[in-house]
């Protein structure tokens, strides 16, 4: 049997709005994933470090403060630096379409805005992690 998908749900920077992160964390857990929630006020360094240490498949980063164009690229850079290239970086918050496109171009996964259903998020992580595991097995 496939091992369960491990996800690090993270709140980065100074933002304390944790409703979304908690709702998503519960939904992922209910969907059978192993979920680690970082709690508030993590630096990009702390998040990338935890992701690699915990050997997660995906990081779900929640940001409602408008700092997404700074923090997502920084977490991505640090994940790569620490050898977590294979870890999916996804997330959500108040992020406009244009910014989502720009972040995807940099290598961030799908991002989810207000109104996204937890089902979409669960499906996306399951599919994307599955795809990445498949790629690794084949390589």
């Amino acid at each position, binding site marked *: 049997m496939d091992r369960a998908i491990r996800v690090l749900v993270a709140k980065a920077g100074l933002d304390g709005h944790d409703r979304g992160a*908690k709702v998503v964390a519960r939904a992922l857990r209910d969907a059978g994933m192993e979920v680690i929630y970082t709690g508030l006020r993590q630096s990009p360094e702390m998040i990338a470090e935890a992701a690699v240490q915990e050997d997660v498949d995906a990081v779900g980063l929640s940001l409602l403060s408008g700092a997404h164009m700074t923090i997502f690229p920084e977490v991505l850079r640090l994940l790569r630096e620490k050898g977590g290239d294979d870890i999916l970086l996804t997330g959500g918050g108040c992020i406009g379409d244009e910014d989502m496109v720009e972040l995807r171009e940099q290598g961030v996964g799908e991002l989810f805005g207000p109104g996204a259903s937890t089902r979409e998020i669960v499906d996306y992580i399951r599919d994307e992690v599955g795809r990445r595991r498949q790629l690794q097995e084949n390589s």
Partner: protein
Amino acid sequence: MSDEQKTIGPLGHRPASDDPHVTVSGREIPLVAGPEDLKDHDHARDLGNPGEYPYTRGIHPDMYRGKPWTMRQFAGFGTAVQTNERYRFLLERGQTGLSVAFDLPTLMGRDSDDPWSLGEVGKCGVAISSLADMETLFDQIPLADVSTSMTINSPAAIIWAMYIVAAEKQGADIARLRGTLQNDILKEFMAQKEYIFPPEPSMKLVVDTIEFGTREMPKFNPISISGYHIREAGSTAVQELAFTLADGFAYVDAALAADLEVDEFAPRLSFFFNSHLDLFEEIAKFRAARRIWARHMRERYGAKNERSWLLRFHTQTAGCSLTAQQPLINIVRTAYEALAGVLGGTQSLHTNSMDEALALPSEEAVEVALRTQQILAHEIGVASTVDPLAGSYYVEKLTDDMEAGAEAYFARIEELGGVVPALEEGFFQREIADAAHWYQEALEREQRVVVGVNRYVDEGETQQIPILRIDKEIDANRRRELAELRTGRDQTAVDAALARVVRGARDGENLMPHFIDAVRTYATLGEIVEALKSVYGEYVEPIII
């Protein structure tokens, strides 16, 4: 329902009559309410007249005819210069009070050049790191005349000191300044999570401001006890009501413990509620809030001054009810929520802008939001008669139920040892997270309809409204400005003032005078907060999913 409507959107096939009849908080809605619902209701005891105890019907006999609500749009972004321009724009268009939104670093007591501030400067409010920024923020705005509300909590006392000195420098008499400091730390621990210090010293800072305000600034509200953020974090209406009033009582207890007289400070305590989508439930919540507060202040705390019994409140429409999808329809949601605030007897109101699920509002969106209030005030007649829903079987029953639900929570909180012990063990956080989870599940199962999101979805929708963008250069510019500030000031005076803050904190003195002295030397917010951290330490919350 027409055939055309039935075919809109992939989820739009169910007829509306199948919708479950529950409020946004999960409360079942009766088909019809009647006299049997008010068996235990006593008109004289539970309602009274407007402007009379227990104030269920409102705090003034003539309500909005005598005193229109203050139209107060929360605003702030980027630099003090940009926000100052927005304020003057709003005042020119008929806004009657200011409400300052600070950026996240400021809310967390960090300067714009702090490494933790990178990417956050000016994003969700205005960046204020020193008195110099505060002076710029209110340039050409006479603080003696314009009432000013400031949404700041952990570092509220320091920001208030900056505002006081800025007003003094304009030549204002500080005893005459009007406005409100949010300064409600308890709801930060519960919901919004912008705390810095542990609960005990945080409460001490709140008491310092209440004491200082009572003595020196009798027209200023030193605290706005807030349910807004509790609700946004996912609570139900009853939880919002109960937790907010429990916080209010905790502040009263703390001020009494500091030897203040209840009638000295209670008249300046003010409140702030959310107005969510369920029209009648919200109206009932506001009416119940007034009644509960009046009863507790008179019966439990023995307040004699009628003004101590009055629950005065600000209302903001529910940010969490806005959708990123079809943003124009948020104007309609906001209008209904604002109507609930007015029918509920609010003293001031903020109407959200249509684009706020996506970004800070654009100028156009803010203008529509303000005009929404002006329509309520002048066109539809609701401001001319007081508490028009009194006597409605449904609304009175809901009001009674709200009160009973809140009292049940007060009893549970007391069993846990009070508000601070309850939040240290995560009681409120768990209650709120459970409610948020329930709501999300209801959405996913389509037990709640959200137009444009899970029904009447506009396939292929793209974002069409202009988004306010914050200048990318702001971080670097602010770092340069602060470097200049730090080299241009009298560092000896700054160091001496910071040392007095540390000493004052250690000795348990009222810190307001020390903060005022410190900001006058252009000591920065971050420097003063660091000084306090050296005495108080920092809070880390229990992790609860």
